[in-house]
């Protein structure tokens, strides 16, 4: 009994020892498994890794990966099991979208259907015809039937619609060249006699190459070169073999020479029955009647009156030669405009008439056809609404004026101020709007080119010498701007241009200070004089950037512009280069002149003088 008790105690001891050793090992293994799972999970919820097998090969250069269509998705995407599409591989464990997104693009082909290179989230249909949505280039159908498919370019010859078709006579259309994927033409001119292209899949990650020989003609095709010449394309497509059909002609239906027509059968007249007179002596009696040989039956030859395909006018009817060339038949009744015997087509128009195009120019009818080029109306004449007449250009009821303006910019140019970092012409943005315009009417805004007016400078000096005067020419108003309207002109620079101007308002000719819009405009359209002189109130300057941004102005001068000046203080660029943002006068350096410009413009920003 005691011995039994000892054995059982040993057994208990052994079991407990096994437990003590196994417990930490098991725990370690479980931890390892969890780590693997958590790695696989990444940010998207992969939880189980599938083994690579012969069906699922990793992309070149990758030694590990997982098969998309056997991977269990635990969170965002329900699981889908292996379907009927080819398996696709991915690689790496990272959360990089790039790795995941391309997983479907490592196998070429597959049973894709539109959209072939769909973006994430697009609708698609699986090849079971089920509506789905594209996830990582796989069309996944609700409830995730696992009919994943590979959306990458297909093989090229199949794309041409004929697996055996390796020759073409002209460049295939993009759709034909790449049924799936986007076409990238390597040689679309067939410079060496071969068209080469690639069909590129989603994001250009996968492509297949295609090529087709360019031939002179489609092998073995036949055609009538003209009425009496047939030809057939050589079997290798390298050229045509001509056959002269002679008078038999080329058959427009069979595209081969007609069989030889019977030549005109000579008219055989029966010889006159010989009259045999018996000589007097001896008297010979005819032994019988001599029967004349029968006249042969002859088929009349068809009379060809025209060549197949020819056309002619008969009154207002356009006729075409019938398929046998033996007569004319009606092709089109040209109606009132008539048939043109020169072009042998129906007239589109009456020769000599004009038709308005756009931008006040017109087409002219020549030989019953509208010209492809247009002619401008003379002077201010206009033509609109596709009018057709002998003379479509007419004087407009009202011609809105074109404005020419002289402006200057605070600190830019002048007698002692260089602008090496600005060109001779500068680009401005001009807005012209009516005083008391209807709500929502923002007027006319255009980007304009301003050119230097030689030796002309502002006489009013806000800082330093007068500034260079620039001309903005022919800013055309439209006909909604009536003589009785008053306008405001607002001038500024482009957002990302070389200049950093602040929108400056002009409401008066010869303006010398900031204009308050509430004063009302004094620029009456009927009393405008060109050029409008705005240059004695220079456009304010200094809108360098905004809060924490020195690349784009914010439409006001504030402390952030000053901060940008400080940050670029003393910096310079070479002459002719784009000026630094804080280089307000374009002299290629950020210095005290720029600071003065900023300071003065800041003060003027709040100026609103009454005139």
């Amino acid at each position, binding site marked *: 009994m005691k011995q039994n008790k000892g054995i059982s105690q040993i057994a208990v001891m052994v079991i407990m020892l096994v437990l003590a050793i196994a417990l930490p090992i098991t*725990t370690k293994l479980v931890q390892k498994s*969890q780590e693997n799972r958590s790695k696989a999970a990444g940010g998207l919820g992969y939880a189980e890794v599938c083994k690579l097998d012969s069906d699922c090969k990793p992309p070149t250069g990758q030694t590990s990966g997982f098969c998309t269509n056997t991977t269990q998705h635990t969170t965002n995407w329900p699981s889908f099991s292996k379907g009927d599409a080819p398996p696709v591989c991915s690689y790496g464990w990272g959360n990089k979208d790039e790795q995941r997104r391309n997983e479907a693009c490592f196998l070429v082909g597959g049973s894709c259907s539109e959209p072939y290179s769909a973006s994430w989230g697009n609708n698609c249909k699986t090849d079971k015809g089920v509506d789905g949505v594209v996830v990582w280039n796989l069309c996944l159908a609700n409830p995730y039937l696992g009919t994943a498919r590979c959306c990458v370019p297909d093989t090229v010859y199949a794309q041409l619609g004929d697996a055996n078709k390796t020759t073409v006579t002209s460049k295939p259309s993009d759709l034909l060249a790449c049924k799936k994927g986007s076409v990238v033409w390597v040689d679309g001119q067939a410079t060496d006699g071969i068209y080469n292209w690639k069909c590129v899949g989603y994001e250009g990650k996968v492509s297949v190459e295609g090529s087709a020989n360019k031939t002179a003609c489609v092998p073995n095709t036949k055609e009538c070169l003209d009425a009496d010449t047939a030809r057939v394309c050589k079997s290798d497509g390298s050229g045509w073999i001509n056959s002269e059909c002679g008078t038999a002609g080329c058959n427009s239906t069979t595209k081969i020479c007609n069989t030889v027509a019977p030549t005109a059968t000579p008219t055989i007249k029966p010889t006159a029955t010989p009259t045999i007179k018996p000589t007097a002596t001896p008297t010979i009696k005819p032994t019988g009647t001599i029967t004349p040989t029968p006249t042969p039956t002859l088929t009349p030859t068809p009379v060809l009156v025209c060549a197949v395909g020819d056309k002619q006018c008969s009154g207002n009817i356009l006729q075409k030669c019938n398929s046998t060339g033996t007569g004319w038949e009606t092709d089109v009744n040209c109606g009132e405009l008539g048939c043109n015997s020169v072009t042998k087509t129906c007239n589109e128009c009456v020769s000599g008439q004009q038709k308005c195009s756009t931008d006040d120019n017109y087409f002219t009818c020549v030989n019953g056809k509208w010209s492809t080029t247009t002619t401008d109306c003379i002077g201010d004449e206009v033509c609109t609404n596709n009018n057709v007449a002998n003379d479509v250009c007419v004087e407009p009821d009202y011609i809105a004026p074109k404005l020419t303006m002289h402006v200057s910019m605070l600190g830019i140019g002048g007698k002692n101020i260089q602008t090496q970092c600005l060109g001779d012409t500068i680009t401005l943005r001009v807005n012209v709007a009516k005083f008391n315009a209807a709500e929502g009417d923002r007027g006319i805004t255009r980007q304009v080119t301003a050119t230097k007016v030689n030796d002309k400078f502002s006489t009013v000096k806000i800082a330093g010498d007068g500034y260079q005067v620039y001309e903005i020419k022919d800013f055309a108003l439209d006909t909604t701007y009536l003589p009785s309207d008053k306008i405001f002109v607002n001038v500024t620079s482009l957002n990302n241009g070389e200049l950093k101007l602040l929108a400056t308002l002009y409401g008066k000719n010869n303006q010398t200070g900031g204009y308050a819009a509430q004063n009302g405009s004094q620029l009456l359209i009927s009393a405008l004089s060109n050029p409008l002189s705005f240059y004695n109130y220079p456009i304010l300057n200094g809108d360098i950037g905004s809060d*924490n941004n020195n690349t784009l102005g914010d439409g006001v001068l504030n402390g*952030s512009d000053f*901060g940008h000046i400080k940050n670029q203080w003393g910096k310079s660029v070479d002459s002719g280069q784009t000026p630094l943002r804080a280089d307000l006068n374009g002299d290629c350096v950020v210095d005290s002149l720029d600071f003065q410009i900023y300071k003065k413009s800041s*003060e003027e920003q709040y100026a*609103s003088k009454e005139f």
Partner: protein
Amino acid sequence: MEKNNALFRIFIPIIAVIIIFESVMLVSGLEKSTVQVKESTNSASIEKQEVKTKDAFEVTFVTDSTEMKVGKNYTVKLQALVKEKRTLDAIDISVKYDAKNLEVTNLIFDEKLQEPIVGKAIKEDGMIVVKYIIETKQGITFNLNDMVSLLSFDVKAKQAGVYEFEIATGNEDKKFDTMFIENTTVKALPFTSNKLEINVTK
């Protein structure tokens, strides 16, 4: 045999204790690991949470009394309490007021700061505008709990009523904004402000 029994009596409880210890420590460690995984999956959303930036200044209106009489001048001060040490390049101040009923005069600017490049009350817009710039390269540093006297002005009411002074933040017009521009970064620093409501009687 008795000796063996004694050995078992000693070792079995010891091994049992070891097993219990391992069970508690290792399995609970496993749980911790699981929790960590869960936390890591949520980390992206935690990172996306906006970190509220601390206000650098507290701008306040100060006046002896908010009860005023028509036609009499009262002084109003605008101060900024420094809540976080900062170095500035520029300060733009815009104060919105009722220009129809209030007259603002005698603008006095902070002596410690450079004379502002703009400092005026614009009746047409109902705004007091003051623009300080600090020309020195290193800017001007304000230490925690410094009190900056941004501006003082006199106000005289034309008629009785309740009126407000308020810091403008560019809503009415972008050129009427209040900004504390930080040196080098050119960032507009966050700040808080109060309104001043005055009750004017005859």
